[in-house]
């Protein structure tokens, strides 16, 4: 039988992660709860056993060797060609991008060129995300898990819904950079093909979807509730519109 009161607190106590006040509270509880006292002994035994078994597996010599050898051939970052001055300019660049954003917002509705440029960057980001090892985010079909993960990173709230019943399965989320801004990305799958939805805050009014294509990908962009959404995929254009409607109606 478990003791629900102390179940996860006991873990924190055992791992030395509780505050003094919480620790004292748990110690008082331990005096009366045989179950927790026994559980604590079990935790201790389990840890001893794990330690004794020496399960830690250090890197193989060949891994070290290979990594060291490759470090001399791989370019440090994609920004490798930029001088280190970049670091000093980071603050200035941040200010500048805010200024650009405000300028754009102030400019009112955007022209088609701008839309095309932005869509181009987004399609590029979509293609980039399809390459192996590029999923730097969370892979989960759990709405709350993805929502929670994005919440800590995107700095604006995003409603995450899995539309698996409608044939759009939630695969996860990640954060990407478009025009120097962090944007949230929701990843769905339709008939085995990925759909990325890029989301970022906007000050502009709601707008109906606009669509276009670039390379072999189609994008669909709309604004709703001070957020801009851009869905990209190589699925049937009808599917993008369908997903747009699902998102709109779930909000």
């Amino acid at each position, binding site marked *: 039988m478990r003791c629900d009161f102390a179940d996860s607190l006991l873990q924190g106590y055992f791992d030395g992660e509780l505050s003094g006040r919480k620790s004292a509270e748990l110690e008082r509880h331990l005096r009366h709860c045989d179950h927790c006292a026994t559980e604590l002994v079990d935790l201790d035994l*389990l840890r001893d056993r794990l330690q004794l078994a020496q399960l830690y597996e250090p890197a193989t010599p060949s*891994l070290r060797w290979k990594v060291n050898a490759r470090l001399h051939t791989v370019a440090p970052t994609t920004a490798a060609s930029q001088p280190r001055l970049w670091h000093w300019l980071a603050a200035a660049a941040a200010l500048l991008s805010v200024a650009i954003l405000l300028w754009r917002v102030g400019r009112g509705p955007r022209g088609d060129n701008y839309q095309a440029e932005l869509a181009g960057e987004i399609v590029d980001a979509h293609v980039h995300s399809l390459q192996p090892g590029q999923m730097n985010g969370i892979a989960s079909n759990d709405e709350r898990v993805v929502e929670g993960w994005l919440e800590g990173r995107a700095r604006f709230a995003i409603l995450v819904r899995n539309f698996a019943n409608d044939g759009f399965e939630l695969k996860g989320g990640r954060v990407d950079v478009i025009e120097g801004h962090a944007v949230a990305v929701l990843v769905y799958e339709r008939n085995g093909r990925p759909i990325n939805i890029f989301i970022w805050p906007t000050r502009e009014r709601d707008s109906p979807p606009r669509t276009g294509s670039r390379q072999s990908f189609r994008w669909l962009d709309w604004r709703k509730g001070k957020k801009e959404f851009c869905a990209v995929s190589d699925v049937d254009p009808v599917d993008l519109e369908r997903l747009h409607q699902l998102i709109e109606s779930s909000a």
Partner: protein
Amino acid sequence: MNEFDAEDRLRFEQLVLPHVDAAFNLARWLLRSRADAEDVAQEALLRSYRFFRGFHGGDARAWLLQIVRNTCYTWLEKNRPMELSMEFDEELHLQTCATPETLAIAGDDRKRLTLALETLPPRFREILVLRELEGCSYKEIAAITAIPIGTVMSSLSRARRQLHSALTNSSQGARP
């Protein structure tokens, strides 16, 4: 430009490379294979080197392990997607994988623990590896696995209980 590259490499060697063991260990347990772990850890280390300018100080081990973890999950998704979906059905998972038979054939305790740990869903396995083998704090685990600290605590609780019951099954199975 070369001196900048050399400086970056030196910083990388000083800050990140000391954690190659941690990278390999996490990959080995997530992928349950030393050979796959070597490939995936290598990929993750090279990725971390490419992204190194995005690292602005702080906990280099947690930063690296986050990349290792993501690389492992991407790899699993591609190569063994079943393993990732297993975790949604823990009960079934325990029944089918941690049978007394499979665990009982493990002779010594190290093998028995290894098998028991490997039957846990990846998300529980990684949290135990980070805590018990890597000695990470809850805060570090939260950063690496991108879950809130409260969830770290409750996941550890479930992970330890599952490991415990997997081991109990095995010792019962070992009895004649």
